[in-house]
């Protein structure tokens, strides 16, 4: 009853009727439908980020036996909206020595890379914009633009902290990208497809969740994903005490907000991918599918927050050795084990 796929279909048909009535062809129908879908996703992304920022503050406060934001709205619920409005009014300072063009486009690239992922994230039954046949690989490849965005920001700022932060960040993200991709390879060996929609439909029953067959893969993914979103204990790129604010040092107001938005969106993305690959996506009993997706994904985000308030920050050398000397060999072992397992238990 609360399934949204009927509503989506209704809206889609409505758009089709309106556009056709205007005397335009099927290409235009698809285009308008896609634009509406993209708008919905942008709004959803903004809402998710607003919620996550508030939640992060609340969770961190609870971990430290504080209350967190309490003043604006019930238990500070609209605190983030107030913060967003404040950020909107802040002066957009463009320092004199920056490389203007690249300085301007860096937040755009970072945000668009974070948002474009949602083309193929299955939010629920029938709630996927397009089930691309290279699904998970598309997500991996489009997120590489995040690295480019932060390198652009670090370089163009003409600031030593920003530059060092940007390059540390890039080195870290790419180091953990390899174990992450290899963990996903192990899952793909089981699924035999890259399409996110199909991967979800293969895990209809609880015991079919790929976490049961890929526990090691999931752990590798979890650690690598935490590092990918630059979260503590892997938050070296913006280690406040060493690097001021890393690659965002010279950004202010809305431009800063875009990096912030992208970061929280990435957090949601990695949790959503974990949900889809390992925890059966939107499959679940009783509740509507999109609700299951949100519950599982937010639980994943909560784990990321939990990490942040539990572990101290790693040193940069530990960070690199951990990726290359521990996670990468482990990911290879996982692939070999998966291969053996499939070969032995083949039906």
């Amino acid at each position, binding site marked *: 009853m609360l399934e949204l796929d009927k509503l989506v279909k209704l809206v889609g048909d409505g758009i089709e009727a309106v556009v056709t009535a205007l005397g335009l062809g099927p290409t235009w129908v698809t285009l308008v439908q896609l634009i509406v879908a993209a708008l919905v996703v942008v709004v959803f992304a903004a809402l998710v980020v607003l919620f996550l920022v508030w939640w992060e503050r609340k969770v961190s406060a609870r971990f430290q036996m504080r209350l967190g934001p309490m003043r604006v709205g019930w238990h500070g619920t609209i605190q983030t909206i107030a913060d967003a409005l404040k950020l909107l009014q802040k002066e957009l300072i463009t320092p004199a020595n920056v490389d203007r063009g690249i300085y301007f486009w860096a937040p755009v690239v970072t945000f668009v890379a974070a948002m474009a992922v949602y083309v193929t994230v299955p939010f629920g039954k029938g709630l996927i914009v*397009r089930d691309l046949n290279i699904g998970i690989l*598309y997500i991996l490849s489009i997120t590489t633009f995040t690295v480019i965005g932060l390198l652009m920001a670090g370089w163009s700022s003409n600031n030593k902290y920003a530059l060092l932060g940007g390059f540390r960040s890039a080195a870290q993200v790419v180091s953990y990208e390899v174990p992450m991709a290899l963990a996903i390879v192990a899952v793909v060996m089981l699924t035999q497809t890259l399409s996110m929609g199909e991967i979800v439909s293969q895990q209809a029953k609880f015991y079919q969740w790929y976490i049961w067959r890929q526990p090691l893969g999931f752990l590798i993914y979890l650690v690598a994903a935490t590092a990918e979103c630059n979260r503590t204990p892997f938050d070296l790129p913006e280690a406040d005490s060493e690097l001021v604010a890393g690659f965002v040092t010279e950004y202010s107001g809305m431009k800063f907000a875009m990096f912030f938005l992208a970061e929280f969106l990435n957090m949601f993305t990695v949790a959503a991918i974990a949900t889809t690959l390992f925890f059966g996506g939107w499959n679940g009993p009783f509740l509507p599918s999109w609700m299951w997706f949100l519950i599982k994904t937010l639980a994943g985000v909560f784990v990321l927050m939990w990490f942040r308030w539990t572990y101290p920050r790693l040193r940069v050398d530990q960070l690199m050795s951990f990726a290359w000397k521990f996670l990468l060999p482990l990911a290879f072992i996982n692939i070999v084990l998966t291969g053996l397992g499939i070969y032995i238990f083949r039906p």
Partner: protein
Amino acid sequence: MVSDFAAVAVFLGLGVGFVLITFLLAKLVSPSAPNAIKNSTYECGETPFGSAWIQFNVRFYIFALIFVVFDVEAVFLFPWAIAYRSLGLFAFVEMLVFIAILIFGLLYAWRKGVLKWY
């Protein structure tokens, strides 16, 4: 199939549009009073000297070099992973050889000490 990717184009276009509109909005409502001190590069309150565009530590670079090799390998693993079940033992052995050769490279880099940060 190709038409699926129209969605990607729409998302990219709309994403850029969203950011630009937000910036424009911010530009309209926010004050703008630049001055030389405000626009100077932030360096913890000190007067910045020199350019930040100086040479950088080689360590980042070596990790990037190794990364390229393993990134290519990961991309090669994806088609193998999709086709793996339908190909059987031969594919498995073939991939073991592929991975083993690259693990040898990793061990080499390890022994040579380039995976060390210091």
